[in-house]
């Protein structure tokens, strides 16, 4: 058997862990070891902290880590999207400079794509980067930037040519967030959380070598980042499972996860918490109300179907069939679910639905659901965009006539927002 045999590999990693794993080691030092050994990201290229192993072997390797509670590389947050993008589009100098510190968790990253004037229409970005012969100067504003307040690096999509059609005039940069020309302001949401930031650039600087890909490749590279974002959306649900074992390294990992997961604390509520409806209906006695019963039953059926639809898509993928439409369909189903769940929670809570805070139902959790659900049909692509995607890419219905095909300079767009 070759070196790629599952048993061989599992033996190898088990031996290596037996020698090196020590829960009292510092988190960063341990991850440097992982990066050097290639066991942290064994499917990455061997010259970049990996071992060139096929992805299919990852579960076995992870199982060996899990078996003894060994901590892995930094696996949460935007930094993963950065790593995936750099691996695909970065030059060797970029990989050398950034990848290892991503794995060790020394650097956090943020994604600077959305703008006040371009939400659904991401390619309509108007934050500009102008090359002055020596370096790029960035001016504009980004929005919905998670972790911008503690990130070292940002993945920036900026317009570098205004005479080309909009998708062609964008370039992709790594920008150092620690400069005074960048101001980060938290953005409070209607549910009281402030999970995102606004980022203002006033002649912020990027050295020439921080351009990723070629000038004008920005849209293509951003699509890579977003594909990984979608792929990781499912993973988010599994994130933050920090171990509660004793040991210095676990404590450090818990702190890391707490920081990175902070913005996502309300995400379960955003999805409507269908899981709470049946039990709440029984506990409150409202399950006896016929009109509620219909709504509740409809909701639970929808939730069950959405789960099956997702399973079925995953199963078909596992059988090697094409991925199919499940991305946007699943997202749209999640939107329907969240809205229906909010309605059912309201019906169950009755007058109590008017309350918030500790004295409110479930210590305010129901109120948090009611105030978070409206984000589901917007964040990560509105329902309207999902329906367009399904109609055009799954059902192959014709596209609408485009009004933004010419030089971007001439495309009607939103005026800059006052600060």
């Amino acid at each position, binding site marked *: 058997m070759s070196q790629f045999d599952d048993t061989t590999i599992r033996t190898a990693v088990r031996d290596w862990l037996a020698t090196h794993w020590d829960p009292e080691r510092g988190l960063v030092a341990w991850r440097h070891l992982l990066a050097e050994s290639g066991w942290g990201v064994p499917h990455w290229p061997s010259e970049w902290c990996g071992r060139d192993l096929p992805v299919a072997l990852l579960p076995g390797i992870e199982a060996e880590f899990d078996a003894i509670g060994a901590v892995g590389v930094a696996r949460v947050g935007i930094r993963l999207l950065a790593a995936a993008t750099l691996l695909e589009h970065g030059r060797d100098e970029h990989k050398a400079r950034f990848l290892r510190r991503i794995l060790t968790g020394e650097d956090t990253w943020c994604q600077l794509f959305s703008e006040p004037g371009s*939400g659904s229409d991401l390619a309509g970005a108007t934050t500009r980067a102008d090359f002055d012969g020596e370096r790029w100067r960035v001016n504009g504003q980004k929005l919905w930037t998670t972790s911008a307040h503690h990130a070292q690096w940002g993945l920036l999509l900026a317009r570098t040519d205004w005479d080309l059609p909009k998708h062609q005039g964008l370039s992709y940069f790594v920008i150092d967030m620690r400069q005074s020309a960048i101001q980060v302001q938290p953005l409070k*949401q209607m549910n009281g959380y402030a999970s995102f930031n606004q980022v203002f650039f006033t002649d912020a600087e990027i050295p020439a070598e921080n351009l990723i890909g070629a000038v004008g490749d920005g849209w293509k590279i951003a699509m890579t980042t977003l594909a990984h974002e979608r792929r990781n959306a499912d993973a988010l649900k599994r994130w933050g499972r920090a171990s509660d074992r004793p040991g210095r390294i676990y404590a450090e990992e818990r702190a890391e996860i707490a920081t990175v997961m902070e913005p996502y604390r309300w995400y379960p509520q955003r999805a409507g918490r269908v899981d709470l409806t049946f039990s709440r209906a029984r506990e409150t006695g409202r399950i006896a109300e016929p009109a509620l019963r219909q709504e509740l039953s409809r909701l639970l059926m929808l939730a069950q179907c959405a789960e099956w639809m997702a399973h079925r898509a995953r199963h078909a993928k596992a059988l090697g069939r094409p991925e199919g439409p499940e991305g946007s369909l699943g997202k749209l189903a999640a939107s329907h679910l969240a809205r229906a769940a909010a309605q059912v929670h309201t019906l169950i809570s009755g007058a109590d639905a008017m309350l918030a805070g500790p004295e409110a139902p479930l210590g305010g959790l129901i109120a948090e659901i009611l105030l978070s659900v409206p984000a589901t049909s*917007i964040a990560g692509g509105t329902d309207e965009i999902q329906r367009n995607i399904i109609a055009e890419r799954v059902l192959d219905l014709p596209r609408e006539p485009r009004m933004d095909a010419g030089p971007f300079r001439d495309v009607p767009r939103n005026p800059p927002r006052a600060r």
Partner: protein
Amino acid sequence: MHFAFTDEQEQFRASVQRFLRERAPITAVRSAMETTLGYDRTLWRQLCDELGLPGIQVPEALGGQGFGFVELCIALEEMGRALLCAPFFASSVLATQALLNGASETQQLELLPAIASGQRIATLAWVESNGRWDPGGIALTATPVGTGYRLDGEKKFVLDGDHAEVILVAARAPGSVGAAGLSLLLVEAEAPGLERHPLQTLDPTRRQAALRFNGVSARLLGAAGNAGAALALTLDQAAVALASEMVGGTAALLESAVAYAKIRMQFGRPIGSFQAIKHQCAELLLAQELTAAAARYAAAAVAENAPDVPALAALAKARASDTYLQAAVECIQIHGGVGFTWDHDTHLWFKRAKTSQVLLGDANYHRERYLAQLEAGA
């Protein structure tokens, strides 16, 4: 029954709208909702002194403006549109109507002038922790003691109950059940044994409180044990009034969504040129027109003491519960991410819509009531 407002009524609406736009813009709402009191006393005084709104539907002989219930509802539409943050609904709708329906003439003469002038804030406490909106759910007891009564029990979801100076309490004779044995009683805010506890609300522009009555002395209004009908009428009238306020709020949301859809550009076009947005707005306008028709018809029916007020109140409130929330949800959706931010104003109406959805009973409750009324009448 009239189907359109008279010119005088439209002028009245315009004057209330102008006043609120100038004195109570949304920035003022935001400031007021964050104060301890929960509203702006200066603005309240202006509302009283310049427009006389708090007693608009109260007869002149009782210190009011002597207009009708329709005018009250016009004012409420505008207050809903402006998201007025003030104890108007508690004092000028709930408490005032309870007194008009349930107190003796002498008591009305004594109590209403101060309330109608806005000098004293009153409220009505009827719902309890069980969350039942119908008077049958009342458990708090009123026990005769000498010439007065002693109240024992609790009330919850009392609008402006933490700061109201006059508290009207719906209570029942010990041992009575259902709509029988109910009385309306007056409690002063400072009465010994009364504990008032502000509730943290989803909607910061409308205060609520929990009240605990530990042997609180109270004064009977109207006849003892006979307030069931007056209370039921008051709640029907309040439902119509609330539906009117909700119609105004819906109008504000619809306007906001449409205005944004006209200027927001994506893909080189205003988003309002996309059918997805267009058709959503068209359906919302339809829902709003239908609901507004219901609220206005119901208001006229209240003004005329029509026998079908219970059915019409149920209809108006059920439709308003659905339509206001639909408008709030869609207004956020059309604004996209910015509509979900704190600094954007839509969430303030959303929270009012969400609260109004259940206040005085949700749509399912009123749909059931409506059908029961039709069955009883058929």
